[in-house]
């Protein structure tokens, strides 16, 4: 197998990991926080009790692990692929989060919210397609806008 082909395969594989792991992390955090119940941050003894309850929930740790997986995949793929090529994956993430919330947590999602989410995905995609480097370098090496 040629090097460009291997690079393509690992790029698609890691983008696939990002599209699943990021939204899944958010959904697991949502599930864990709902399981943890009412949150109290004052007085300090109550805050400690809340923290112990939150971090004693399995879904929270799975969510954090999932978000760390997303972060790792993101950093790795950005070491060889362009930001503008990878970034659309994060735009898809908003839609995938809503889909997972709908199917895994049975959240009600109105048609207007689906439309809003679709427009957000489009907006984030457009932001990602804009030039990532907005500063020009002058002949002296100083940056100017």
């Amino acid at each position, binding site marked *: 197998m040629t090097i460009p082909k291997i690079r393509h395969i690992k790029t698609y594989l890691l983008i696939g990991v990002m599209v699943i792991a990021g*939204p899944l992390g*958010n*959904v697991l*955090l*949502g599930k864990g*926080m*709902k399981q*943890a119940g009412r*949150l109290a941050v004052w007085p300090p003894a109550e805050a400690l009790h809340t923290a112990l309850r*939150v971090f004693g929930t399995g879904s*929270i740790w799975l969510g954090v692990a999932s978000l760390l997986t997303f972060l790792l995949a993101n950093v790795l793929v950005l*070491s060889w692929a362009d930001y503008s090529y990878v970034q659309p994956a994060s735009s898809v*993430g*908003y839609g995938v*989060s*809503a889909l*997972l*919330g*709908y199917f895994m*947590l049975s*959240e*009600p*999602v*109105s*048609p*207007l*919210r*689906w*439309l*809003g*989410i*679709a*427009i*957000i*995905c*489009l*907006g*984030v*995609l*457009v*932001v*990602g*397609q*804009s*030039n990532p480097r*907005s*500063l020009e370098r002058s002949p002296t090496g100083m940056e100017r*806008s």
Partner: protein
Amino acid sequence: MLEVILFLLIVVAGTGGELCVSRAMKAVGEVKDFRPAAIVRVIGRALRVGWMWAGVGLMALAFFSLLGALSILNVSFVVPVTALSYVAGALGAVFFLRERVSRRRWAGVFLVSLGVTLVFLGNR
């Protein structure tokens, strides 16, 4: 009211944290060597920049605010609204980092704002 405060913290602290980290990384310089030892050296240099610590602190605040929001609101509402960070990011890039933001990026920011408005209206 609590929801508004949590969203403000997620968006403002999250974006502020990213801007601080971005400013710190610009002070560190472009990363060209991705070997583990070189990355460790870059992290070491970054940790000597005050902006990096400010950035990490703000991002931690944003994460705990996200946990707070997820405890009272649905994921399918909270996550799309956090896209407002693109709006805050564009404004921060202009006023904090003195970057030039292209028309295309402003168009994307407008679409994100429109989408978030619809998500809010769809939550009523």
